């Protein structure tokens, strides 16, 4: 077997595994969110399908598969169909550069736990994140519905605004590590310590801007139920709706995974050098903790008003992120 074929097969297997893992993560994240919400609100939550409701995601999936697909009369058919796909794909491919563990030996060859390690990995993440907004905007526009349109407009304004803070907040780790490769950032954290200690402001800005990027509460203005029914996906049903749903939750996973990599040392942890497979466990634990934090925030905080949201993004997060970049750069130059 020539080495090229081996690399191709390895990449295909890893990509398929990643898609499978993300889809499973999505399914159980919805269940986890409902269970945690039930716990917070002193209810029982889903508990009928399977033990502790563990089969609930499968039941939901089957239900959504058999729902009728509705297309509004005035809709732009092609774009209406394209929008959920455009939301879904960036959410999936953004995870391609995130390393979920150190290199391991398997079948006599060293395998990287992570699909790819670009030397401009952070730029790749930024570019995929900047394309992600199209699906939402197009969904809002093509539905021919004023709630959808308003949701789409709000989403695009919000995502463009918070993308700037997001982009600036990742410059801190890049300066400290001196590389844009995510693997390189993790290696640099192995030598010093988790960057959340050096970059508390950067980590905070990244997390908040990430929340806004994936339209999670308290920044879920684009889909505010009380004012916009469901925002940009009001008119969607069946599988198209579930693609939006899936896209949102996978984006949550992606944001938490990237935050883990940048600020929490990724797969690093005790004994990870001796037992590389432990890396996956540490990575999962850290990502899950951040996901829990996201759900917790949603269940605790009320939604911001739209002008508050924009004011917070432009007048608080952006100056904070800028100051963080300046301080980090100055300190790095002065302290060597």
């Amino acid at each position: 077997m020539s080495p090229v074929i081996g690399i191709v097969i390895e990449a295909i297997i890893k990509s398929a595994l990643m898609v499978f893992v993300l889809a499973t993560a999505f399914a159980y994240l919805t269940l986890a969110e409902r269970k945690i919400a039930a716990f917070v609100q002193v209810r029982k939550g889903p508990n009928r399908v399977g033990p502790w409701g563990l089969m609930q995601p499968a039941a939901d999936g089957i239900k959504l598969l058999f729902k009728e697909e509705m297309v509004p009369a005035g809709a732009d058919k092609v774009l209406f169909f394209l929008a959920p796909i455009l939301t879904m794909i960036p959410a999936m491919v953004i995870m391609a550069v995130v390393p979920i563990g150190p290199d391991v030996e398997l079948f006599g060859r060293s395998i990287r736990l992570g699909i790819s390690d670009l030397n401009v990995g952070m730029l790749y993440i930024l570019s995929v994140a900047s394309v992600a907004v199209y699906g939402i905007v197009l969904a809002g526009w093509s539905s021919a519905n004023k709630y959808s349109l308003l949701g789409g407009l709000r989403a695009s304004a919000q995502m463009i605004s918070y993308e700037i803070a997001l982009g600036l907040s990742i410059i801190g780790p890049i300066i400290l590590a001196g590389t844009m490769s995510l693997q390189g950032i993790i290696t640099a954290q192995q030598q010093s310590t988790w960057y959340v200690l050096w970059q508390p402001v950067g980590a905070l800005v990244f997390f908040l801007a990430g929340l806004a990027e994936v339209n999670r509460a308290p920044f879920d203005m684009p889909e505010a139920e009380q004012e916009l029914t469901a925002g940009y996906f009001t008119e969607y049903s069946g599988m198209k709706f579930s693609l939006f749903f899936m896209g949102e939750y996978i984006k949550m996973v992606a944001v938490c995974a990237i935050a883990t990599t940048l600020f929490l040392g990724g797969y690093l942890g005790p004994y990870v050098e001796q037992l590389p497979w432990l890396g996956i466990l540490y990575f999962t634990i850290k990502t899950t903790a951040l996901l829990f934090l996201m759900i917790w925030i949603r269940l605790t905080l009320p939604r911001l008003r739209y002008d508050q949201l924009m004011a917070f993004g432009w007048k608080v997060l952006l100056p904070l992120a800028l100051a963080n970049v300046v301080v980090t750069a100055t300190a790095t130059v002065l302290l060597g």
Partner: protein
Amino acid sequence: MEAVSAAQIIFIVVALLTVATTFLVVTVRNLIHAALWLVATLFGIAVIFVLLDAGFMATVQIVLYIGAIAILIVFAVMLTRRVMQDVGPQSNENWWLGTIVAAVFFAAISTLLWSIRWPALPGAVVGDTVLALGRSLVDPNQYVIPFEVASVMLIIALIGSITLALPGKQSE
């Protein structure tokens, strides 16, 4: 006849697609569709940047053009959406003159192109493009002054567009 390489096939396919989408940008009536064809064109140009060994520029093209500029255009189209029902003529009365000017321009520039044989210079090997680009931008002997001027220009544009968009100024 030399064998056609993969890069050449990609170039031809992407170039044809890009020309087609560009043509659609200026011809379709629906503004959102035009904006989306523009996105397709920008993406095609990003692919061609990759073919030209400028992967970093391709990424910047996607972040900046597709992620910021094109989305702002889509945003502006949505804000001015009443225009979408516009059924009047889409071209002005001097359209034939404009087409002739463009055709003459194209003829002139392509004659120029085919008449010059570009000398195949030995390409200097640039190790780390991103590093070299970054260094040139802060090197006093190279581009630090244009860089600073560009940042001042961006601030001016920022202030200018805020001033334009401030409400309540038109009525006075």
